[in-house]
């Protein structure tokens, strides 16, 4: 088997590795630094993942509690570990009731969907979703739910690396070549399996939950985001497009993440897809003759209008 064979190297397919990527960390910190968080007391972190951005939010709003929701129990486990390591009190499987003000340094964690918010109306004064809003198909429903659980005057903030305009032309070229190289990597892997008398790893079509929402949903332009938020009762106070430079290590880290691998190479076993993307990131950059790519992120801060 080749040195890049999945049988040789175990890949961490959680978001943990990319959450520590220097470019990603810097982008998140810059996003949070633009938010008016000082008076916030109750934060809802949707699709909170490992807590990488939630921790930054709490640092900027030290008197606030935070309730994080994520569909993936593995991410919730990692978040519990990370928040506990920073000295926060953890409530697992927390009831969908916000803590009253005065519970700073308390983090509640729930496995659940960002689109099914069973909290009472006006439960929070800040709702945040970092780099995940593009994965949610029903954006009308999502924004409406967020408006309901936010008190008037509350902040809704999000960042996303997937919107219309996120990829300059060279980035589009690199990402497309990356998918092609990853596909070829899997083909080579299968050829080696067959040569060794093993059956090839088959792709199962139509099983991915992430591919359709990530890549077949229409990405919104900044102006379309502004219009949608306005229609749902929000005033956009700040909208920023941030160029983030991803090098080989950044791409290998995010390529290994199961969420991206499942969406990009849908139908293959996630472990194999993750390794294919992580192993071919450098080749994709080299093919385009660059050492990094510019990936733009949109950052939005909106305030819920009074009813």
């Amino acid at each position, binding site marked *: 088997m080749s040195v890049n064979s999945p049988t040789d190297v175990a890949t961490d397919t959680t978001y943990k590795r990319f959450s520590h990527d220097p470019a990603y960390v810097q982008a998140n910190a810059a996003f949070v630094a633009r938010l008016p968080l000082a008076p916030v007391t109750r934060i809802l972190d949707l699709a909170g993942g490992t807590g990488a951005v939630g921790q930054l939010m709490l640092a900027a709003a030290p008197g606030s509690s935070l309730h994080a929701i994520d569909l993936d129990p593995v991410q919730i486990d990692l978040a519990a570990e990370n928040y506990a390591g920073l000295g926060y009190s953890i409530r697992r499987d927390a009831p969908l009731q916000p803590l009253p003000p005065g519970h700073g340094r308390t983090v509640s964690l729930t496995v659940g969907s960002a689109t099914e918010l069973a909290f009472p109306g006006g439960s929070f004064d800040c709702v945040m979703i970092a780099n995940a809003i593009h994965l949610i198909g029903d954006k009308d429903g999502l924004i409406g739910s967020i408006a309901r659980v936010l008190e008037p005057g509350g902040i809704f903030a999000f960042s996303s690396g997937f919107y219309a*305009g996120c*990829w300059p032309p060279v980035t*589009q070229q690199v990402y497309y070549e990356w998918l092609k190289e990853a596909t070829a990597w899997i083909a080579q892997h299968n050829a080696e399996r067959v040569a060794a008398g093993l059956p090839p790893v088959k792709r199962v*079509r*139509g099983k991915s939950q992430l591919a359709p929402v990530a*890549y*077949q949903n229409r*990405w919104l332009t900044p102006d379309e985001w502004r219009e949608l938020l306005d229609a749902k009762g929000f005033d956009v106070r700040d909208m920023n497009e941030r160029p983030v430079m991803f090098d080989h290590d950044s791409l290998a880290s995010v390529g290994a993440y199961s969420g991206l691998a499942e969406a990009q*190479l849908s139908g293959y076993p996630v472990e194999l897809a993750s390794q294919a993307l992580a192993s071919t990131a450098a080749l994709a950059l080299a093919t385009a003759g660059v050492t990094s790519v510019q990936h733009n992120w949109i950052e939005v801060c909106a305030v819920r209008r009074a009813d």
Partner: protein
Amino acid sequence: MSNEATTLKFTRDEIERDLIAILTDMTADWDLSFEGGIQPDTRLMADLAFESIDVVQLVVAIEAHVQRRHLQFEKLMMVDGRYVQELRVKEIVDFLDQQLAA
């Protein structure tokens, strides 16, 4: 399209014929309700249930067939900074006709 390694010029009709052949081969064992055979107006997503990786595999198959790499398919797949929501066979044919003539 010819199998001769150095012959890389194709008529539009040849491109269309061979693209349909590639698509027919790719989708042969897919469980599709689509009927009538692949035509120029056939939609990849709506009719053939293409996923994003299927498009990549189609690109790889086309590039192997025409013996050309880096045909800048991203320019076909992304318009106004975002992925297109649908592609018809004839749009790919038009794109290849331009790219292979370059």
